[in-house]
């Protein structure tokens, strides 16, 4: 189906979808569902499926899967819709894709989505994943995982989704050289090894030498999934042929370069860095790896340019990176590694301003407590990510309001804060109010592990309420904690805790409070937000 056709289908569903949602009542009590949705938001906005400073990878994964299962079992449609919310981690979308594809929709009680709308959401989720993660998700569909309670999925829906996504990407030629092994696995999964082998043999022949049966096989299994003209079909045939192992009669420039670089390295200068590096180490072992940096510097992706800065610096090669291509957290992580400079600081400012506009906070004067204690270092897998997330959120809040009183706990104040020391959050709250009693709200940016002593923040909040300070206090937590089944809280009575994986997506987290107050209404607003936040084809409801 072409994108235009998809959009048309989406438009057709608008009214029906809205009607169904308006009259939809969940099969579980609203309060129970509200708790499940809040837990899901906590998880899906913060969990990366990785170890943290405190929890092992397997604990984190088991906890997040359990929360996904709870929502899926409560309402398949709600689960589907919420997976489309902006700001969800890629990991959550990956789990969502696998969960939906490995459970047939047949026999599911009708709710507010149709089979077609679920397919559109699913396709959006799949395509919005970064390529390596999308291919990893396909690999997960092939193998499943008993340990992680994920079933393999090899049904018609899965096959169509894989083929539609891969064959219609404008980046198919690039993917063919960059991810050829993963692409091979994906096609083997979609077609089965035997059919893939048959397709390979057919594609090895010239178009003229293919017989009717050959053409039929190609049409039914490959060509019909390509939504484009003759040129697109020809390119898709050539890429698939290359991926399946045929290496002759290449016409697409990138595929030709791949073959030529094996003999003459210079010819591969338009290939991705890691591909050319692989060719160098196998076919040109005498050439220095630094030469590859120099050869590919004009075709590197923005992320590659960022990631090779240290190596390039050592090799004396200048590779310009564009900081505007990265999110605020990535910029902070980069600054931790390479140091701050004006270009990075300027980009941080612009990014924070942009995110602040989307946030649309109603407060003018706020207090901010930045937890820069030692545990904000995070895990070995993702060092300093919690601290980077806290600083990015601080910047957005600063740009979203006209005045702020900021206090740091542990580390020293500054643009780039190195985490250290203990966690005395309560003292910082009192200090903020002692400095300016007119702040309208306080935001605490913390992993929620308090020790100076534990429970002091809750005590102080209780006292503040007694004194008549009724300002809202929000705890924005960037760290998923498996032992909490969500994010760790500082005070369940007087502080609203919200997960914040990325400050650019704080809006969805803010709905948390509303769902707790008015469960069904809040959930329906969330569904509308989710289904109107993607590309036009996915706008299943009027915004």
């Amino acid at each position: 189906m072409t994108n235009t056709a998809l959009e048309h289908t989406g438009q057709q569903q608008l009214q029906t979808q809205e009607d169904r949602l308006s009259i939809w009542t969940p099969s579980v009590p609203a309060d129970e569902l509200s708790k499940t949705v809040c837990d899901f938001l906590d998880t899906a906005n913060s969990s990366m499926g990785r170890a943290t400073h405190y929890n092992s990878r397997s604990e984190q994964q088991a906890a997040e899967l359990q929360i996904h299962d709870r929502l899926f079992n409560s309402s398949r449609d709600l689960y589907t819709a919420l997976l489309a919310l902006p700001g969800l981690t890629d990991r959550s979308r990956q789990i969502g894709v696998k969960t939906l594809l490995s459970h047939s929709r047949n026999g599911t009680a009708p709710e507010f989505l149709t089979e077609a709308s679920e397919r559109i959401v699913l396709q959006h989720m799949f395509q919005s994943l970064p390529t390596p993660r999308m291919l990893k998700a396909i690999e997960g569909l092939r193998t499943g995982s008993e340990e992680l309670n994920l079933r393999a999925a090899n049904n018609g829906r899965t096959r169509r989704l894989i083929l539609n996504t891969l064959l219609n990407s404008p980046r198919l030629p690039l993917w063919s050289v960059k991810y050829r092994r993963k692409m091979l696995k994906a096609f083997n999964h979609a077609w089965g090894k035997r059919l893939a082998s048959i397709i390979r043999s057919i594609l090895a022949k010239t178009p003229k030498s293919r017989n009717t049966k050959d053409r039929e096989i190609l049409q039914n299994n490959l060509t019909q999934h390509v939504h484009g003209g003759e040129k697109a079909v020809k390119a898709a045939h050539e890429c698939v042929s290359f991926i399946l192992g045929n290496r002759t009669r290449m016409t697409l420039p990138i595929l030709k370069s791949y073959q030529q670089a094996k003999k003459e390295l210079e010819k591969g200068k338009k290939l991705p860095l890691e591909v050319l590096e692989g060719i160098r180490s196998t076919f040109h072992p005498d050439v220095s790896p630094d030469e590859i940096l120099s050869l590919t510097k004009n075709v590197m992706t923005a992320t590659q340019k960022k990631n090779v800065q240290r190596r390039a610096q050592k090799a004396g090669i200048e590779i310009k990176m564009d900081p505007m291509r990265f999110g605020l957290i990535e910029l902070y992580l980069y600054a931790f590694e390479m140091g701050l400079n004006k270009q990075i600081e300027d980009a941080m400012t612009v990014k924070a301003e942009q995110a602040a506009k989307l946030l649309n906070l109603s407060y003018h004067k706020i207090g901010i407590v930045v937890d820069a204690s030692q545990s904000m270092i995070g895990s070995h897998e993702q060092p300093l990510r919690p601290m980077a997330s806290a600083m990015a959120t601080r910047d957005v809040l600063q740009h979203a309001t006209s005045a702020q009183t900021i206090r740091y706990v542990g580390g020293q104040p500054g643009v780039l804060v190195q985490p250290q020391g203990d966690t005395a959050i309560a003292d910082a709250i009192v200090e903020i109010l002692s400095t300016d009693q007119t702040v309208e709200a306080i935001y605490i940016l913390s992993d929620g592990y308090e020790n100076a002593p534990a429970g002091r923040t809750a005590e102080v909040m209780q006292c503040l309420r007694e004194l008549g300070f009724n300002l809202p206090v929000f705890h924005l937590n960037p760290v998923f904690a498996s032992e909490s089944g969500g994010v760790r809280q500082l005070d369940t009575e007087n502080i609203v805790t919200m997960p914040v994986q990325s400050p650019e997506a704080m809006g969805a987290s803010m709905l948390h409070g509303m769902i707790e107050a008015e469960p069904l209404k809040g959930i329906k607003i969330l569904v509308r937000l989710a289904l109107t936040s993607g590309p036009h084809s996915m706008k299943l409801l009027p915004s």
Partner: protein
Amino acid sequence: MSSRNRRTEETLTVENILRGTSFGNTQSVGQMQVVPILDESGDASDDHYAAPNLNVRTSNYGTVDVRNEDEERETIIPTGAGWVTKQHAQDHAIPSAHVVKPKSTESIDTAMCIEESQSGLIQGATDFLIIPATLRVKALSKRHDQNYSKLWSDIGKFNRSLDVSNGTGHLVRFLKQYERELDEFVAEFEIVPNQIGAIVLIAGKIVGIERAPNFPFWEKIWTPLIRVCYGSLAIQAHKLLGTTQPSTRSSIVMLEKSLDGLKAALDYAHMHSQQLVMNEFNKAKQLPLKQKVDSAMPSGASLITIANQFLAGQIITREERIPYASICAAGA
């Protein structure tokens, strides 16, 4: 007279052991409290010893071969260090501290098995834990025994006290059953700048005094200490006392109903908690400790086992200094 002999003739106290250090703010979560021991002047640290970067094999049941991977400096294997692996091998621990020369291997034949009835030898392990304080004290009293099964009955008793199922002689079963709680202790207690040691309290009583030669060494041993060695005591205390607060943690009492009053109450609660904790420490710091020189170590250092009616542990002395101390409550 050698410095080692002079040291053994002095009356040793905890105060002597911690000479040159100062104390940071108390961290407190549940029944456990930790007072950081700091080297603010830089004079209390000893850079002669590298942080323990170890690689361990077992060459026989009861014998561990510990390699110091540091190329330049000696290191100390902490008292009660243990290796629990996923290999098809018997987990082992050592009862006593040891000093290992750079790029050298120390073969310790007084090690003990901590995984009863499991066969197989460890083929290489780098991560270590420090066995629960309760077991460390028992192991210390058997530190010269060459009997690899010497701790099995104590492990069984320890496991039963914590309702660990099928726990006879298997420390790993305790570690698995309480994995989540143990992991949380690591996050809850944070290292502060210039820290080289800690005083640990459970339920308002001192259960451990630890001193490392320097900050990197402390960074390396803190997780093993807080997670299993002292974390196990916190779990025991939680079972007995539930969520009550220890007597050494003060709550906020607002005498004047204003923001200034709250600030004063907060400051007082911090100060009072610190005072209560230090009162406990003061009770212990001047009590004399009996000493027994266990063995001479490289570079003129000595390993000394110390004890009084409340505390038991080991110190390492070198050139009139005490770079390493690890002391637990005797009745832990």
